[in-house]
């Protein structure tokens, strides 16, 4: 079976126990996606599947035939950074950097979700359009833990990208 990873077709014939995360890191050499807890509690392994953010540790590679996977390597490169990557650098949105690829993939999809009008747990009126306040960003990004505690700068970086996109 085949998957499309960052626009490139990859074959998968391995053990069905292989998580999408292990397939990306071990078999595709895409080590930008990080393994933190391996149990869906930290968000370090966040990737995009058909544009939606998921925890790649809690899904099997074999379940993703013909799906389009985007990892941090597919969002930007050191020479041509995605606006979120540039904003994280500008705002010091990290210390050790281990959670950063997951934070950025998650933020990319989170901005798309907000654009599509999805509400969150802190949205006041479920039928009105939600403004992406810092409180909204914190709630929507709560699936990505940062043990260095760079949250304030992460929120600033995401806010800047949201403002620049206007």
């Amino acid at each position, binding site marked *: 079976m085949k998957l499309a990873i960052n626009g490139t077709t990859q074959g998968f014939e391995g053990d069905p*126990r292989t998580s999408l995360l292990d397939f990306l890191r071990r078999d595709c050499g895409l080590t930008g996606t990080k393994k933190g807890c391996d149990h*869906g509690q930290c968000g370090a392994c*966040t990737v995009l599947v058909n544009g939606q953010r998921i*925890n790649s540790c809690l*899904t099997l590679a074999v379940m993703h035939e013909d799906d389009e996977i985007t990892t941090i390597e597919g969002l930007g490169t050191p020479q041509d950074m995605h606006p979120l990557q540039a904003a994280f650098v500008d705002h010091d949105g990290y210390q050790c950097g281990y959670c950063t690829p997951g934070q950025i993939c998650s933020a990319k999809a989170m901005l798309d979700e907000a654009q599509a009008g999805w*509400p969150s747990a802190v949205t006041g009126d479920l039928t009105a359009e939600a403004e992406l306040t810092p409180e909204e960003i914190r709630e*929507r990004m709560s*699936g990505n833990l940062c043990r260095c505690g760079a949250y304030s700068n992460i929120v600033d970086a995401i806010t800047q990208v949201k403002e620049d996109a206007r």
Partner: protein
Amino acid sequence: MRPFDYQRPDGLDHASLLDRDGATLIAGGTNLLDLMKLQVETPETLVDINRIGLDKIEPTGEGGIRIGALVSNSTCAADPRIRADWPLLSRAILAGASGQLRNKATTGGNLCQRTRCYYFMNIDMPCNKREPGTGCSALNGRNRIHAVLGANENCIATYPGDMAVAMYALDATVEIAGPDKASRSVRVRDFHRLPGERPELDNVLEAGEVITGVTLPAPVGGTQLYRKVRERSSYAFALVSIAAALRMEEGAISRASLAFGSMAHKPWHDLRIDAALTGAKPSDALFDHVADLLLEDAEGYGENDFKIPLARRTVKAVLREATGAST
């Protein structure tokens, strides 16, 4: 993780696969794969149902709405019809997990999620739910998150979810297909079980049965609140949660439906509470009476004793807010 055979049917005809011993369905997989990594779940065959359809939200003839079993939690919570007419369901779903998990988690799978009891998830410890007859380690162990209602010495685990609590308050119906393709409907309030003598059974699904969807009755309007008390303000399971759908007319409560999460082996619904509220004028005495009804048989097991006064305070706060009472 133990080895397994992987199958991916493209329709409901997979039912025969489920007749094989050791076959387990996988949809979102966010709970199942976690438990497989811990070897709490060890299926011999994994049947991936993600490509069999059942992913639509459609109106019913009776003014209600039918949510396919494979509709993701994200899609359900964001659906404009659900947000406008059954906001309690959106609120409960959005109070749970994270954006990433809600994108994978499904309507049917969420109903079937297992307890987060520490001992159930640790294969080195006795647990009647995981291994019947071995005993309950939580009874005299760490039990901060455990049940205070409907439990017994066999099992004090809780059903940990949020979505189902709203479905109990909204009186939803679970649609189920069987191996012979016959289908049946079960009120969600009758879907989950109390531990009784069979704590290994979370719900009434029989071998080979599959949830195909959940139907909500016509909108009830009024004020709809989901209050979730937890250790941190996002991305944590509830210690106590309350789903409330309540309507006021001329200073009195004209309709009320309450359900309670993380207090028992299933979301808790007590018809006496809804009846006591209906037709009554809001008052502190009324709200205390409701708390008395809820907690008359409540029992703590040590670390979770605090849940009893917490539930009393939370239900009173929810009722004050929902009725606009100043008491």
